[in-house]
C-alpha cells in the first residue's frame, strides 16, 4: 500500500504551489509572469513541457487576459488555475468581481507583494487587500508547507456546489515564494483522490444543455445575485471547516478557520496574517519566558471573514492588537475595523490597537513584534500605530 505522505523535500513556496498543481493536474492554466509569482508558472510550464501533466497551458499577453481566459475556461467546464501578484492582480481587477459573479471556481495563487508606488517589489498585503471586496474566497499560508497544503485545499472549498466562488491562495512574496524550506508533500494519488474530479455547474461545453453565462442584470436581479454570493460565502465557512477536517485525515496536519497560539490564558493577543504569524509565535515565546501573558492568532480564511471565531478568541482579553500589512490611507489597516466589528456585535470591547507594519517589505523581526506587545502593555500605544515610522 502506498503511503499517504511522501518523503520530505527542500523547496521554495512557489515551487510548492507548482508541485501541488502538478499533482492535481488541472485542465487549464493561464498566466502572465510577474515577480514573485514567476517561479510557479516557470516550474509548472516545465511539467507541461515534460508531459508530466496534460494541462492546457496558455501564455497570454497580460494578466487581464489571463483572468478573462480563466473565467471563461472555467465556465466551459475546465478546472482552471492561475497565479499573479501586485500590479498583476491590479491589472486583473476589472475581471475579479466579474469572475466571482460568474460563480466559477477558478483558483489563483497570489504571491503577495505591495502595489507600487513608489515603485517597490517587496512583500506586503496591499495587493490582496485591494481585492478583498470582489467576492473571492481568500486563504493564507504561514509557511511553504502551508502554501502547498492550501493549494490542495483551495479547489475543494471553491468547487463545492453550494459555494462555487473563485479562491485566492495567499503566500508572502519572497519570504515564502523564494525561501527554501523543508516540506512533506502528499502522495500524488492521494492528492488526486482528495481533490477529486471537477464537476462544473451548467458548463458551456455541455451542448446537450445549452446555457448562456454572464448576462446583464437589471436592478431586479443584480442585488439578489449579490445576495446569493453572500449565502455562498456563509456556506463556505462550514465547507472550509469540513475540508480542513478531511485534509487532517490524509496529511496529519490540522488547520482551523482561525489558528491560535498560546491565546487561551493570554491577556494580550495579536491577530496577524501570513508568514508573520510564525515570527510572532517566536515573539510570544520570548515574552512568555519574561512572564508576559501574550498570544497570537491568524485568520486562516480571510474571506469569508470568520467573525464568530474572532469574537470568541477576543472575549475577555485585556487588549487586542491587530497587525495589518496594508494601510487604507486615511483610515486604518483593513483588518482592524473587521476585528472591531466582530467583537462589537458580539460583546464587550477590550482595548483595541492597530499596528501597521512591514509595508513594501520593511523587515519586521521577532524583537519588533515583542516591542508591539510591550508598547501596548506599557499603555504607550495609540489606536493606530505605524511600526518603525518616525512620526
Amino acid at each position: 500500500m502506498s503511503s499517504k505522505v511522501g518523503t520530505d523535500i527542500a523547496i521554495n513556496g512557489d515551487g510548492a504551489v507548482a508541485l501541488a498543481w502538478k499533482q492535481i493536474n488541472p485542465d487549464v492554466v493561464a498566466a502572465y509572469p510577474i515577480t514573485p509569482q514567476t517561479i510557479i508558472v516557470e516550474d509548472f510550464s516545465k511539467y507541461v513541457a515534460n508531459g508530466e501533466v496534460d494541462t492546457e497551458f496558455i501564455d497570454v499577453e497580460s494578466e487581464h487576459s489571463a483572468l478573462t481566459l480563466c473565467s471563461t475556461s472555467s465556465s466551459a467546464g475546465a478546472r482552471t488555475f492561475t497565479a499573479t501578484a501586485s500590479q498583476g492582480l491590479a491589472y486583473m481587477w476589472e475581471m475579479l468581481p466579474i469572475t466571482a459573479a460568474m460563480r466559477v471556481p477558478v483558483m489563483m495563487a497570489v504571491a503577495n507583494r505591495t502595489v507600487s508606488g513608489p515603485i517597490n517589489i517587496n512583500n506586503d498585503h496591499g495587493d490582496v487587500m485591494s481585492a478583498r471586496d470582489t467576492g473571492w474566497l481568500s486563504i493564507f499560508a504561514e509557511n511553504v508547507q502551508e502554501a502547498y497544503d492550501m493549494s490542495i485545499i483551495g479547489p475543494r472549498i471553491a468547487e463545492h456546489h453550494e459555494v462555487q466562488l473563485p479562491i485566492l491562495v495567499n503566500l508572502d512574496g519572497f519570504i515564502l515564494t523564494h525561501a527554501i524550506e523543508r516540506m512533506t508533500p502528499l502522495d500524488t494519488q492521494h492528492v488526486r483522490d482528495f481533490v477529486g474530479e471537477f464537476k462544473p455547474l451548467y458548463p458551456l461545453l455541455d451542448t446537450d444543455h445549452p446555457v448562456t453565462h454572464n448576462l446583464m442584470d437589471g436592478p431586479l436581479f443584480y442585488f439578489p445575485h449579490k445576495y446569493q454570493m453572500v449565502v455562498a460565502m456563509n456556506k463556505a465557512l462550514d465547507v472550509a471547516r469540513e475540508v480542513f477536517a478531511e485534509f487532517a485525515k490524509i496529511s496529519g496536519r490540522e488547520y482551523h478557520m482561525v489558528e491560535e497560539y498560546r491565546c487561551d490564558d493570554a491577556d494580550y493577543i495579536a491577530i496577524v496574517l501570513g508568514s508573520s504569524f510564525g515570527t510572532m509565535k517566536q515573539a510570544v515565546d520570548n515574552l512568555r519566558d519574561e512572564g508576559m501573558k501574550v498570544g497570537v492568532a491568524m485568520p486562516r480564511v480571510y474571506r469569508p471573514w470568520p467573525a464568530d471565531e474572532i469574537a470568541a478568541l477576543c472575549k475577555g482579553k485585556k487588549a487586542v492588537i491587530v497587525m495589518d500589512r496594508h494601510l487604507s490611507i486615511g483610515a486604518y489597516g483593513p483588518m482592524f475595523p473587521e476585528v472591531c466589528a466582530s467583537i462589537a456585535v458580539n460583546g464587550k470591547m477590550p482595548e483595541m490597537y492597530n499596528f501597521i507594519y512591514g509595508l513594501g517589505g520593511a523587515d519586521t523581526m521577532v524583537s519588533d513584534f515583542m516591542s508591539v506587545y510591550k508598547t501596548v502593555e506599557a499603555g504607550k500605544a495609540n489606536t493606530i500605530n505605524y511600526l518603525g515610522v518616525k512620526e
Partner: protein
Amino acid sequence: MVNLADYKEMIIGSRVIEPGNSEKFRTGDWRSQVPVIDKSICISCLSCWIDCPDNCIVVDEDGLVDVKTTHCKGCGICSQVCPKDAITMKEDIA
C-alpha cells in the same frame, strides 16, 4: 419596500439555462410612454410594423394595425415613421 426578485429561485452566476426565454423578458416594464393609434387616419401602410425594433406592431386579418404592449419600450419610432401622424405617444400610467 423595493420589490426584488427572489434569490432562491434564481440560477447562480447570472446564467440562463433555458434557451429562448427572452420572450418572457417583459421589456415593456421600462416604458414611460405608449403609442396610441388613431385607426380613423391609418392607411395600413405598415411602416410602423416594419420599423418597430421590438415586433410590437401586430396586424389583424383585415390588415389593421395595433400595438402589443408587453415588449413595447415606448421608443416612439413608430410615431416618427408614420406618414399620416396616426400614432401619438401618450404617457403610460398603467
